[in-house]
């Protein structure tokens, strides 16, 4: 059952990511990006990261993707769009780079097999036990508010800078 669901959502994520790249209409791209993100959220649940899956739905689909759609709407890009896929030389470059990257990453994945075999004691069971002991949110929250407190607080500064920067860039020039 898990393998079936993994194949289903993994295939869905790959197929819709492909459509994001090839769709001509930016709105269609954004909506297929939604399918990709939702399928990845389902994969996160399968991989014992329920909290991250919920965050994915709230932050990525609820905030970032809506921001994308909002900008597309604001700039009126939903229709009368010009085809923007680059000509053949660029497609060959993209295909070549993509092929090289896939081969390289597939080779890089090989050590993961030995990692899984070596894991033995700290396999998925250890993570599940931790989540059962502290709760799905608590397992993430406890290190976040102790060992990673300083980076966590720094993200608030990052978000503040992001808000100010976005406002400054997007506001109309008054001069």
């Amino acid at each position, binding site marked *: 059952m898990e393998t079936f669901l993994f194949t289903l959502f993994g295939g869905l994520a790959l197929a819709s990511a492909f459509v994001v790249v090839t769709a001509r209409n930016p709105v269609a791209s954004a909506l297929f990006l939604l399918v990709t993100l939702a399928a990845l959220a389902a994969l996160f649940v399968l991989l014992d990261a329920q909290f*991250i899956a919920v965050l994915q739905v709230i932050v990525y689909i609820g905030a*970032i993707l809506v921001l994308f759609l909002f900008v*597309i709407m604001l*700039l009126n890009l939903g229709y009368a769009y010009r085809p923007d896929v680059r000509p053949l030389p660029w497609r060959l470059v993209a295909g070549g780079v*993509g092929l090289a990257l896939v081969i390289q990453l*597939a080779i890089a994945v090989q050590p993961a097999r030995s990692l*899984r075999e070596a894991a033995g004691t700290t396999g*998925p069971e250890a993570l599940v036990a931790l989540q059962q002991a502290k709760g799905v949110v608590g397992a*993430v929250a406890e290190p976040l508010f102790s060992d990673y407190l300083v980076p966590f607080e720094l993200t608030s500064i990052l978000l503040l800078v992001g808000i100010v920067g976005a406002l400054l860039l997007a506001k109309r020039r008054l001069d």
Partner: protein
Amino acid sequence: MLTESLLLSAFLFTIGVAGVLLRRNAIIIFMCIEIMLNAVNLAFIALSRYVGIEGQIFVFFVMVVAAAEAAVGLAIIIAIFRHYESVDIQNFNLLRW
């Protein structure tokens, strides 16, 4: 499921890279960057099952950075659109050599 997840993550990342190279619409290039970030998140989550909960915490930080990056990036796109009436990246080639 570790190897399968990492392979899926590799394919998603590659689709994102190919999209950045293929498209000229700045908004779609941004979407491809989001796909790449999500591919990395998937790799983190898959490995966190074996290495420890830290992978999920890192994904949390990646999401924060992605949110800030999307807000600033889309604001830049709006500013560029005001200037050129277009989001085609062929129009802004000032830094090109």
